[in-house]
């Protein structure tokens, strides 16, 4: 105990800056891990709960990416007597015009849906008061079936200041409609899904209002047994699937996995830095207390006790850092959630993340990770401490040096690390996650740190002569003292080398990646203007233009060409991919698609037009092992169709895989002529600013269109990119600050040690 107090506790209290920094280092590492775990959990849970709430009691559903013909219900009817219950559902995204926020529209058969979902009306029409659940009178109930009726959760009504009878302007699938709030739901069941951003309408009304006559998004089922299930399977059209509602969660979770691994790799960097800090701190504390250790051992402290004391130092740093880190992480999670939430929304699905809940599991994992890694980091220096000899009576200097043999071992290991990194790089990704890439980076960093003692020796011996020439004896002593205390300097230098090495490596990587993206964006976003149905930049389906906008735009005199863009998510095997469309002819003449194969896009686009072929993104090609000449099978409204691949292009906006086809082909395949974005090419000499003003004036009122300039899009993409890497930069900055402090610390200790020598020199001179 007094050993611990002498070597660890008192110094920790006395050297507050050192302690604070180390604890903070660990805390940051743990915080990042905890925050990422928390925000991930929250984002996923939000999504899962929404899906569950909307699925209600259904144990199966018939789903399709291209819509289901409602005649399927007639085919299902005979199975009712065998216990099957089914409910037709329209489940689509829309946008609230006033606030430009997403809303999920759930169209159900209000009469039969009671079997599936739990609704409780807080109030209907202008009638009953909130609170209890009085049975609404039949007449009022009937009003809910009117084609302009919508039922919203009480929370949503409060947020948007809606009362019974209030109008609610929506934009759904390109249809601008104003609905009337005729019912308000208590927050339970489906009313809690999507954070309450949900509106329920009668299915017939939904079909009429949103242009889906005869169409369903899915059919929810309560299937009594295996027999009925196989009977249903026989009735299914080829472009539909019979699956558990949870399958959708699984698919989304799989989709988010690569993204999550990336985040945790980031957290790994933070933890590595934290570990490194503990290593550095414990080692420096041992170097500074070396004399005390010698004295204590002379007095009878055993090597084991010394080892345990310093290990305890690591443990203490780890424990303190973990505790702070967990709370810091809880706070940080909120920020990250907004960041992740944005990325998830931009890249994958529309779901509003929920509140963050610090679960015991995550807290425990955070604590374990922080404490364990600190402990591991402290092992090597603690062993070092246990090897101090008690022969302190004679000499106080450091005799230990890195011997020549050890030096060459270090160099060889460094070279081996680099070689291994090069080899590992070539390994294919595991499950779409480039574990090899992370490993290679780690190996390079390790190589540099192994090499740093050598670099110090070489540099200091190279400096000896010039330093002697410049400053005589003092200069020589200074440069000679560095290798003499190599152990110490090399660790300080390794710290800085590691931190700066990491900084440089990551900065280079991110920088070159950023440059690639910039070039790609410049090439891809070559048009002059974009016309969007909503203000924000989002890939989701929440707001759409009707097809008629294209003809209107073509009539504008200063526009040279119009390229309407439409995309949708499609289930491909076990994955969710994006299928996009544009005018291939316009792309060929005006655009500049960055190609992988073939080199030039023009002939490949023509080929696609001629053969009803498609382009796939590089990520799609890699993920599903497809090349030009192969073909993709996609579910369409006409069943499953096969499309030949005539080109592979580069797309950094999407890592799940994209299939792109000509608009004509897309409309035929999916019976969907809506538009997400219109890309506009202006005639020569037309100023984009002018064009934008005129377009917003002409199309704003009719289509709720917003025009965006080319450079704004580019800037926005780069902003998203930079935001994503903010955490990385922050972490690296911490690493470098800590390393510099380590150097200062070490130099201070060195000066302390050399001061006697220097004093002698001063007397002599």
């Amino acid at each position, binding site marked *: 105990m*007094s050993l611990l107090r*002498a070597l660890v506790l008192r110094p920790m209290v006395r050297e507050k800056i050192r302690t604070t920094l180390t604890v903070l280092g660990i805390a940051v590492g743990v915080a990042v891990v905890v925050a990422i775990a928390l925000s991930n959990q929250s984002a996923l849970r939000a999504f899962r709960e929404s899906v569950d709430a909307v699925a209600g009691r259904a144990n199966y559903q018939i789903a399709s990416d291209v819509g289901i013909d409602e005649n399927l219900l007639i085919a299902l009817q005979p199975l009712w007597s065998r216990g099957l219950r089914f409910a037709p559902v329209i489940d689509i995204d829309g946008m609230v015009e006033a606030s430009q926020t997403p809303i999920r529209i759930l169209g159900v058969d209000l009469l039969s849906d009671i079997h599936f979902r739990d609704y409780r009306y807080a109030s209907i029409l202008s009638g009953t008061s909130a609170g209890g659940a009085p049975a609404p009178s039949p007449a009022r109930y009937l009003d809910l079936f009117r084609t302009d009726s919508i039922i919203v959760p009480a929370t949503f009504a409060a947020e948007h200041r809606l009362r019974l009878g209030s109008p609610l302007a929506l934009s759904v699938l390109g249809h601008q409609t104003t609905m009337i709030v005729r019912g308000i739901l208590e927050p339970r069941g489906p009313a809690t899904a999507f954070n309450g951003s949900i509106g329920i309408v009668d299915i017939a009304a939904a079909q009429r209002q949103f242009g889906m006559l005869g169409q369903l998004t899915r059919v929810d089922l309560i299937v009594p047994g295996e027999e009925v299930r196989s009977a249903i399977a026989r009735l299914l059209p080829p472009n539909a699937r019979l699956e558990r509602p949870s399958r959708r969660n699984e698919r989304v979770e799989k989709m988010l996995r690569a993204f999550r691994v990336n985040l945790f790799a980031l957290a790994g960097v933070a933890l590595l830095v934290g570990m490194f800090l503990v290593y550095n701190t414990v080692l420096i504390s041992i170097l500074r207390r070396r*004399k005390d250790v010698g004295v*204590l051992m*002379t*007095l*009878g*402290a*055993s090597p084991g006790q010394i080892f345990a004391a310093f290990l305890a130092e690591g443990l203490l740093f780890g424990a303190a850092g973990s505790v702070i880190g967990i709370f810091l992480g809880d706070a940080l999670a909120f920020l990250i959630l907004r960041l992740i939430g944005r990325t998830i929304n931009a890249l994958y699905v529309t779901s509003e993340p929920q509140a963050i809940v610090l679960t015991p599991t995550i807290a425990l994992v955070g604590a374990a990770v922080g404490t364990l890694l600190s402990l591991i980091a402290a092992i090597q220096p603690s062993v070092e401490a246990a090897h101090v000899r008690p022969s302190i*009576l004679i000499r106080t200097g450091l005799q230990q040096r890195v011997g020549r043999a050890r030096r060459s071992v270090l160099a060889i290991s460094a070279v081996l690390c680099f070689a291994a990194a090069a080899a590992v790089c070539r390994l294919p990704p595991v499950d779409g996650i480039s574990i090899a890439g992370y490993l290679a980076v780690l190996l390079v960093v390790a190589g540099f740190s192994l090499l740093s003692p050598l670099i110090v020796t070489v540099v200091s011996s190279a400096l000896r002569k010039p330093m002697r020439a410049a400053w005589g004896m003092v200069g020589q002593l200074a440069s000679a003292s560095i290798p003499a205390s190599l152990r110490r300097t090399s660790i300080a230098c390794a710290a800085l080398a590691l931190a700066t090495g990491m900084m440089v490596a990551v900065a280079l990587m991110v920088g070159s990646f950023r440059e690639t993206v910039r070039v790609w964006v410049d090439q891809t976003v070559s048009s002059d203007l974009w016309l969007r149905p909503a203000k924000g930049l989002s890939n989701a389906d929440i707001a759409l233009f009707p097809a008629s906008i294209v003809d209107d735009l073509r009539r504008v005199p200063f526009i040279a060409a119009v390229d309407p863009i439409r995309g949708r998510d499609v289930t491909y095997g076990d994955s969710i991919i994006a299928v996009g469309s544009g005018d291939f002819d316009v792309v060929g003449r005006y655009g500049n698609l960055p190609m992988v194969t073939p080199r030039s896009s023009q002939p490949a686009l023509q080929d696609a037009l001629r053969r009803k072929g498609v382009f796939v993104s590089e990520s799609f090609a890699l993920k599903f092992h497809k090349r030009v000449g192969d073909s993709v099978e996609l579910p369409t409204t006409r069943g499953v169709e096969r499309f030949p691949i005539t080109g592979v292009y580069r797309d950094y906006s999407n890592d799940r895989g994209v299939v792109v086809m000509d608009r004509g082909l897309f409309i035929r395949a999916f019976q969907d002529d809506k538009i997400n974005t219109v890309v506009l090419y202006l005639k020569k000499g037309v100023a984009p600013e002018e064009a934008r003003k005129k377009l917003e004036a002409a199309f704003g009122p009719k289509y709720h269109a917003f025009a965006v300039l080319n450079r704004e899009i580019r800037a926005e993409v780069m902003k998203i990119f930079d935001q994503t890497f903010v955490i990385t930069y922050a972490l690296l900055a911490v690493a470098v600050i800590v390393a510099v402090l380590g150097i200062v610390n070490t130099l201070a200790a060195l000066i302390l040690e050399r001061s006697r020598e220097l004093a002698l020199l001063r007397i002599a001179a």
Partner: protein
Amino acid sequence: MRVRLEHVTHIYPATDESPPVQVLTDVSLEIRSGDFVVVMGASGSGKSTLLNLIGAVDRPTSGRLFLGDQETSSLPESALTMLRRQSIGFIFQFFNLIPTLNVFENVAFPLSLNGRGRGEIDGRVREVLDRVGLPHRATHFPGELAGGEMQRVAIGRAIIHRPSLILADEPTGNLDSRNGEMVLDLIRSLHDESAATVVMATHSDRAASRGDYIIHIADGQVTR
């Protein structure tokens, strides 16, 4: 405790910068239990080396060394640690107090290493601090003490566990003459009160006169 050296030779092995150094050559010597011996010799003659070997801090390159009946030159490291912890007290030229422990804790350290109870430690440390004349300094840290006071604390630490062998390496080397006298008086009277053997290395004739007899080291040889 009786100390006996049989044909002890000590050589510091060569390093990158320096050749091997032979400090002691075939030294045989016996110090009887309860003696107060002074070791004298020029700087670099090997006084500290000899004390290190006797104190089980280092092992001789060859020859045998006995403390009491035990041959320390053949004991394992852990046994040497226990021996130092239980039976030997060390006093150094540069005091070597632990700067992060206060006076009380510094003095108490050997007792707590020996696993004594709190009550015993408390009483014993007060007793010893009284004896070295520093009862009012218990909660001070070494940095707040004068050189003479630090050495008296170090002496307290060296005797707290009632060792049977006390080794003092130039205990007055870093003190002015008044404080040096005080420290020498203290060591002498502590020796007289206990049955401990004392081996003290020194340059000064004044210090040497406090011992029972003097051992001279020169050119690796020991003469009485």
